[in-house]
């Protein structure tokens, strides 16, 4: 038996390799650089790595390859767009992570213990979060360009495991944060198991683990359809879990609330791009010819997700939980793009993912600024009167909410319009009508927050808005500018996306 070395196309894999190298250097820094310099060195390293990867992704745009890594990675226009989106979102999320107010001093210490006190007094900082972020980013970059089930699974785990850890690193309310991490991990493990189960059935159906092989079987229609259906169903469950679609959403409000806000921002925005990227690729290429068997079900899930997310969000009293339910509703809107199954749907989904991701990071960045003496305040009632005390912060947050609600002249409106029109074009009128109705419901709770901030007088235990650090300020301003620009003049980005948004098989 001979062993032939795999042929790798390093150019195409380079963004992922750069990130991984940065992550490994980060681990080494943890071991060798003194505590005082670590935060700064790690921050520079992480941002530098992400920027380098972004430049590299941009340099390889337009190249297409199905054989980059022995047929297990496929690089094409959508892959380029999604990787770009993930990297941009990651960079502005890292700026938030850099605000060390968010993180515990020593993750291993029991909450409330002497050990914890000591480490706080010593001014320790969990700089491990930087390499963890990079590992997660590497997984996210791989996820939407995987072209076989094994690579897809590896990427899924690679992006998930660091996130499970990061969710438990909150500085305040540590028990809540640890509970969130555990919940996320357990449910994530379940969904991974479902995913593997489905992958096994797809292998049984087609005798192949590559997307191309499975696709050929679907097109040929030679295999046992039961296996295919079970396979599609369970692989979808794994993916729907990651995007937080109903009924696989139960983790997201708890995790959004418990995790440090910077991590929530990163997770909410970047994971969604990666997971929807993979989902679009699988449904648009592999399962496209079995459309009849999954569109009805996925349409049903999309409708339930939109309506459920919007309705339940109304009852929320915590800003992070509210944003969690709002992101569930948005997952439903994005599923409309998956169902559309046409070129317009692909472009619209990518636009929506980018626009929504940026606005999400911006909104969470504002959440990190609203504090009292014991840390961030996420209780909505205590946001009352924020508009009086800090008009600019409140205005920016209100603007992000209007973008989520899809009011014209924000990026959210263009996203919603393009995704719904793509779905309508493919005949999914029920999904569009449900989407429009749930947008109306969703408007209610976004506006309620605006009412609280601007039209309600503040309580005695008022919150203060801290002066944002330079990095947080960059994140907020960048997100705000992008959200406005994409609302007022989205044509350049839409044309750019249209130019690249074609899957190769």
């Amino acid at each position: 038996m001979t062993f032939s070395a795999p042929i790798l196309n390093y150019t195409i894999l380079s963004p992922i390799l750069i990130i991984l190298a940065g992550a490994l250097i980060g681990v080494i820094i943890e071991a060798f650089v003194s505590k005082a310099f670590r935060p700064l060195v790690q921050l520079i390293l992480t941002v530098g790595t992400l920027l380098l990867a972004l430049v590299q992704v941009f340099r390889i745009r337009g190249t297409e390859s199905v054989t980059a890594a022995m047929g297990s990675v496929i690089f094409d226009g959508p892959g380029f767009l999604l990787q770009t989106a993930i990297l941009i979102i990651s960079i502005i999320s890292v700026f938030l992570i850099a605000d060390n107010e968010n993180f515990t001093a020593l993750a291993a210490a029991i909450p409330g213990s002497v050990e914890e006190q000591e480490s706080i007094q010593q001014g320790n900082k969990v700089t491990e979060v930087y390499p963890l972020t990079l590992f997660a980013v590497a997984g996210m970059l791989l996820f939407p360009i995987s072209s076989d089930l094994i690579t897809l699974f590896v990427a899924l785990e690679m992006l998930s495991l660091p996130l499970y850890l990061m969710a438990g690193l909150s500085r305040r309310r540590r028990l809540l944060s640890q509970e969130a991490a555990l919940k996320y991990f357990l449910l994530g493990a379940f969904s991974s198991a479902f995913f593997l189960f489905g992958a096994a059935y797809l292998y049984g159906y087609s005798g192949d683990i590559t997307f191309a092989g499975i696709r050929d079987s679907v097109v040929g229609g030679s295999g046992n359809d039961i296996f295919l259906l079970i396979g599609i169903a369970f692989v979808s469950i794994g993916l729907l879990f990651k995007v937080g679609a109903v009924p696989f959403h139960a983790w997201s409000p708890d995790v959004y609330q418990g995790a440090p806000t910077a991590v929530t921002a990163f997770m909410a925005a970047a994971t969604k791009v990666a997971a929807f990227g993979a989902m679009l690729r699988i449904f648009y290429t592999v399962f496209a010819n079995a459309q009849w068997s999954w569109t009805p079900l996925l349409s049903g899930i999309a409708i339930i997700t939109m309506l459920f997310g919007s309705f339940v969000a109304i009852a929320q009293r915590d800003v992070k939980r509210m944003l969690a339910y709002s992101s569930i509703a948005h997952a439903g809107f994005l599923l409309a793009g998956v169902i559309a199954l046409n070129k317009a749907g692909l472009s619209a989904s990518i636009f929506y993912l980018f626009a929504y991701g940026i606005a999400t990071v911006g909104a969470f960045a504002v959440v990190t600024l609203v504090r009292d003496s014991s840390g961030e305040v996420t209780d909505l009632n205590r946001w009352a009167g924020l508009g009086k005390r800090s008009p600019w912060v409140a205005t920016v947050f209100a603007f992000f909410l209007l973008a989520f609600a899809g009011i014209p002249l924000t990026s959210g409106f263009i996203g919603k319009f393009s995704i719904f029109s793509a779905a309508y074009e493919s005949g999914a009128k029920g999904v569009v009508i449900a989407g429009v109705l749930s947008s109306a419901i969703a408007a209610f709770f976004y506006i309620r927050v605006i009412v609280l901030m601007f039209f309600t007088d503040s309580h005695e235990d008022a919150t203060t808005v801290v002066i944002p650090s330079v990095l947080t300020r960059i994140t907020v301003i960048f997100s705000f500018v992008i959200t406005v620009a994409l609302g007022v003049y989205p044509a350049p980005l839409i044309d750019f996306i249209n130019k690249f948004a074609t899957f190769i098989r």
Partner: protein
Amino acid sequence: MNISLTLLMALPLLGAAVLAALPKTNALLAKQIAFGSTILVALTTIAIAVSFERDNINLQFVESHQWIPSFGINYAVGLDGISLVLILMTTLLAPIVVLAGWNESQSGRWSTKTFYILILILEMMAIGVFAATDVFLFYVFFEAMLVPVYFLIGGYGTGERSAAAVKFLLYSLFGGLLMLASIIGLYVLSGSQGGHTFDTQALSQLQMSSTTQNLLFLGFFIAFAIKAPLWPFHTWLPDAADSATPGTSVLLLGVLDKVGTFGMIRYCLTLFPDATKTFTPTIIVLSVISIVYGAFLAIGQKDIKRLIAFTSISHFGFITMGIFAMTSQGHSGATLYMFNHGFSTAALFLVAGWMISRRGSSTIADFGGLQRVTPVLAWAFFFAGMSSLALPGLSSFVSEFLVLVGTYTRYPVAAIIATFGIVLAALYILIPVQRALHGPTTAGNENLSDLTLREKVAITPVVVIILFLGFYPSPLLKVINPAATHVISQLGFSDPAPTQLGGK
């Protein structure tokens, strides 16, 4: 510089930008800049109106630039007689509102400067919504203009202002989203018939099945019926008008609500001619209900602002009836009605606002005998009331008469019932006039002051316009008629000959 619609929209925005750069403390300067900007906008509109060719039925002052080419979306504006009249109304009302409500912004949550920035942005969007000839652009203005109004009501109103603001916003958003679904439907249809477009002209050529057409029509119509507001979609209006400042109410009822009736003409009728025919009887019935219901509820109101709001529901019933009567008189009447209603409502709200701010109460029963204490104010209120009940010789009489004549030739029963609305109008106006102005001066009213010079200056143009158009409406009708006839003939209707009178 050439006069263009874009310039007209840029002017208020420029004013808002200047205001934004001002320090918060100088409230007087903010007011002066706001007033100056609105005057400038009004003069520019008049210049546009003068160079408008009345007999040309094509769109004029057309501008078109690509906005989002991959969706076929253009920044496209243009004027026909109907939109010109409404833009004229908007820009004439704006300076009057600024001058009349000089001190309105004082009870607000935020600074005076913010108040006027919101007003100017609203003015710009109102011009845009009437001028847009691209459905997508129209929708953007239609929805975006909710935001400044929302903050104007919630930030500067009185009473339950934030609840009223939210109610207003949610109703409008709901309607807007239904319209969005219809717009998406049109967009997809246009894509399957020769390329994506939002051009109103091109969309009106689309072929569609009658079911599709009916559904898309309803999406638009419900949005406009909420805006207008037509019974049974009206419930947000009394609360909003009650809580808003008088000036905001004028803009809300006088300008913003006209977008609903304007949209019916511009979009419901031209884009969906067959569906329009299907739904016309239903809509006529709803209009008649609005006329009578609004009038009855107005009679029963104790609060003066709510009373005016309900009278408006009745008036909007007349406008909708005129539009859907599908006769050229009805159409011309409805458009003229929109213009006149803007000024008569402005008169009512502004004068009522002065009464309320002097007395500190908006309950009609708290007033009494104002005729003796504040004669000019009382005469102003009386005049505004007469204009609202369409006294012959005042402008609203002409439009109401035209609407009724236009409706009678096609729907005699509806016209006859609607005529009762005029009788009821006499009641809902004369009762508050009697209670508030005549009789003995009630306690608490003895020391009220009469109108100041500023207030007199503000109300004079309104009075002049109402009187002038009451006796000589033809300058406006000459602009409106060609456009109205054009719309009717596009729909394939011709005016039925009056059956009983024989000849005109």
